[in-house]
């Protein structure tokens, strides 16, 4: 069995239902994402269009993150999923350096690397990933790539020649495919990221890796003197205390 994902970008309407479902299912902390939907506008008025691209871990067959992980925290499951063991992770961020898709983040609550696991815990119980269930237009297609009768295999056969992966030149052999994508949507260098040029928020770089309130000394002292437990509520409080949404250029 080799599980894979396919997103039909012709069907995706950018509702972000999958993004929210993922956040809820996996309790992904604020400021981090396992799955996100990126909006890209193309052309100039009146000849303009908008595309929506869901982005998640590609569960590569030749995963650079698995190769560089010094302690096998990132490992393959028998079904092809690239899973992560947060108890073993040492937080070296090597995987974040290796992943060509920027799909791995440092969890601010655990200070370990984390990423999409194709909802491995749900699959183990015979359920579909949360994002697949939430998609109202069935743009997310998930299944066994080695089963010729699976929905995903049929979809790939039907769209032969139009199925793409991100960054094929990296030789990572992703098991995550796109139909209806183009260079503008799949290549991060084919579109501009202009600061402040956004619908609802500024597009900025994160100003911290992992827990912003967990400095170098805290990392050493926390096991002995304890550390304030970080959750989404405290993250909201610290964010609102720092500066208001308007000050950040929001609408």
């Amino acid at each position, binding site marked *: 069995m080799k599980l894979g994902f396919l997103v039909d970008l012709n069907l995706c309407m950018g509702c972000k239902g999958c993004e929210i479902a993922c956040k809820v299912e996996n309790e992904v902390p604020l400021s981090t994402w396992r799955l996100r939907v990126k909006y890209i506008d193309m052309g100039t008025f009146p000849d303009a269009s908008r595309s929506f691209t869901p982005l998640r871990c590609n569960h590569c067959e030749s995963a650079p993150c698995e190769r560089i992980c010094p302690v096998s925290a990132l490992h393959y499951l028998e079904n092809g999923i690239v899973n992560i063991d947060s108890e073993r992770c040492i937080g070296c961020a090597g995987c974040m350096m*290796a992943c060509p898709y920027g799909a791995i983040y440092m969890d601010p609550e655990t200070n370990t690397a984390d990423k999409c696991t194709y909802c491995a815990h749900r699959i183990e119980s015979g359920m579909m990933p949360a994002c697949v269930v939430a998609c109202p237009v069935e743009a997310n297609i998930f299944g066994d790539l080695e089963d010729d009768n699976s929905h995903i295999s049929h979809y790939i056969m039907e769209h032969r020649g139009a199925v793409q992966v991100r960054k094929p030149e990296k030789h990572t052999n992703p098991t995550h495919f796109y139909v209806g994508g183009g260079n503008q949507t799949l290549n991060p260098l084919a579109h501009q*990221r202009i600061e402040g040029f956004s619908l609802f928020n500024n597009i900025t770089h994160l100003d911290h890796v992992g827990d912003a309130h967990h400095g170098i000394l805290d990392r050493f002292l926390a096991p002995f003197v304890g550390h304030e437990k970080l959750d989404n509520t405290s993250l909201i409080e610290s964010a609102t205390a720092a500066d208001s949404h308007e000050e950040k250029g929001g609408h």
Partner: protein
Amino acid sequence: MVESTIHATQAVVTLDVPIQGIVWGSIITVNMWAKSIGTGVVFLAAFLWFRHKKEDMPNLRWVMPVIAFLALNIFLLFTLIDLHQPYRMIHIFTHPHWTSSITVGAWLASIFLVLISIMMLIGIADKFPGIPYKGCKLTAFGRKISATYEKIFPFVVFLAIPVTTYTAIIMAQSSARELWQAPTEVMQMMWAALLAGSATLSFVSSSWTQEARKDLALILAISTFFSFTMYMSEYFFSFKSSEAEAVLAFVHAGGKYSIEFWFGMVLGFIIPFFIAVGNMKSDNQTLLKFAAILALVGLFLVKDVWLKIPQMLPLS
């Protein structure tokens, strides 16, 4: 493919999450910089003992392992503090994953440090018998195994090669960062070690013969020249991939990374090169030490830029 350029499509991200900034920052720069010193002094000692009599560099036998020991401990300390779970560093030894160059490097560096520690013990015990006090069993043991120093030194020199270059393999395994994928990274690490080693040893070379110091200046001149040449090759031949080109735009287009990079080039490579060349004829110790300071500062600046700029690029 003019039809898919940003100019043609006017493609702009209009809604997305904030992306990761610099993950490996100046802590990792210090890590690489200190490792260059730690292994560089070993290479230089091997070269100098090959070319000269031991009496020409009377303090080298004990001062080299002391410098290497200090630099390697700084390197390991900064490796540790960069981890988000520092106490789990032990997992590298209890659950090693051998495809990872981080694992291989950690093991090699640890073995290297053990050997350097033995050499330091012997070097100090032989030179300063009364330290830390008369009758100390540890230094007595060091004197007892004095001959081991010369026996393990060839292995230490051999081991210094992978310890120097494994960081380049880590960078190669960081396949998301195209700028680090160049095969020249390995040689850059070697030149950095020779540069750092020759620069550091120049501070303790006052009691050496003029000929030995000339060789020190020679290595400094060669390493600064080749380091500069290799960085310039990378800088001008950036068309190897669109990603590398986009990364180097952070240096080409001006701004703080451009200033840091050119400061490093001029301070760290160009000025020390000319001073070192001049010093091969006229033995001016003050100037050589000045060049050494510049080279070490410049090396840090250049490594810092090279580490950070590939992380500025959005990956998805």
